[in-house]
């Protein structure tokens, strides 16, 4: 019985092989070389502005605590090259502004001309954690600090 089964299987395989459609006889072959140049491309989309509205002095300032706000704004970075992001804080006179990417374990970075964040190519979406400390004697009252970003490639 086993031998019969093997014979039938072999015959079936042979039939399958011989019944396969034959490719046409190759007559000639050529090739065209394609070269694609992909320059660095980036896109920064501010879905929700990264801004912080606060009144100075804020609660707990008397205990020396800064104002910390989590999960501020929303931005998308798309880049086909390693990227570098710089930020500038507008309307922040009299304060030191610190930022870090929300849900990251990175340290706070002061938002100034020397600060930057980097990442590898790809698509990212993230918000920010912001921390504000008074620098000197700011004017009391309400204000909104805006963060403006610049994206470039490394």
């Amino acid at each position, binding site marked *: 019985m086993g031998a019969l089964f093997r014979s039938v299987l072999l015959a079936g395989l042979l039939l399958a092989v011989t019944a396969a459609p034959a*490719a*046409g*006889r*190759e*007559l*000639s*072959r*050529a*090739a*065209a*070389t*394609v*070269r*694609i*140049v*992909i*320059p*660095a*491309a*980036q*896109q920064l989309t501010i879905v929700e502005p990264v801004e912080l509205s606060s009144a100075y002095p804020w609660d707990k300032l008397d205990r020396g605590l800064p104002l910390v706000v989590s999960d501020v704004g929303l931005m998308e970075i*798309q*880049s*086909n*090259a*390693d990227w570098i992001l710089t930020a500038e804080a507008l309307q922040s006179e009299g304060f030191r502004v610190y930022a870090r990417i929300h849900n990251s374990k990175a340290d706070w970075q002061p938002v100034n001309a020397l600060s930057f964040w980097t990442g*590898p*190519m*790809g*698509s990212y979406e993230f918000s920010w954690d912001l921390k504000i400390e008074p620098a000197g004697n700011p004017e009391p009252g309400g204000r909104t600090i805006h963060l403006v970003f610049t994206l470039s*490639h490394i």
Partner: protein
Amino acid sequence: MAACLIGLVFVSASGFAQREKCVVDPPELHWVVDRPGEDMAPVTVGVYRNPGAGSGAIRFRMTNLVSENGHVLPPDCIEIYSGYTDHWQSFASRSDHLVLLASGQTSNEISVRLSPSVWGPAGIYRGYLESANGGAAIQLTVEIPRRARLVVEPSKISITAGLGPGTYRTNEKISITVDANHPNWTVSQSTDGLKYVGDPKPGAAAAKLWIEPEQLYVRLEGDAKFVQNLTRPVMLQGEGYTGKTFTVWIECSLGWEHLAGNYEGAIDIILAQK
């Protein structure tokens, strides 16, 4: 009645016999033309007058040579040197006649050759060099084998993807010409994809350093609906008996996952006979 029938048969037979005033040797000629413009050596044919067949000039004419597919080689594709003129002669039309055995001569050796211009759709063409007043004919066979030649230009094409992710077309068109004398061929285009050229930065290890065949397309000029993905070979078919030129672009669909840089690969183009 029977006597009448026998007489009729006799008259017919003798009449037919009278028409055979000459014989030719060899009675059949066969050429195989491998390529256009090929020079073929002339063949010598003897024309012999049958004894008692009179002494008048024996004239021949050419029929068309017709292939099994109905294609025609005109009578002037055969050239003859009869020795009665100092040049090769051809038959301008089917009604044109040439003297191949002059009046009073009992034999003549002629040379028969194919015109170098003979070419056409693949096939076996048959016709006759026949003499109405000599009752003889030479069967002529011209065999034109299938031939197909592939020319692809240019050999290098490029895409500049300057606006980020999207679909881009090659800066140059590819011209794929199949010079063929039959329609039984296909041209396939395929690719293994395009590979990043050079060494990416160490941090780009996770990047996609390959443009896959499914991101590449063939677009055929003149047929807005013909845009085919190169995941599988893209096939083009032969039509007619005179070959064909296809003009195509390669298109590429790029995303953010493709690391900035240069990529290179080949589109393989294969001509095959069906």
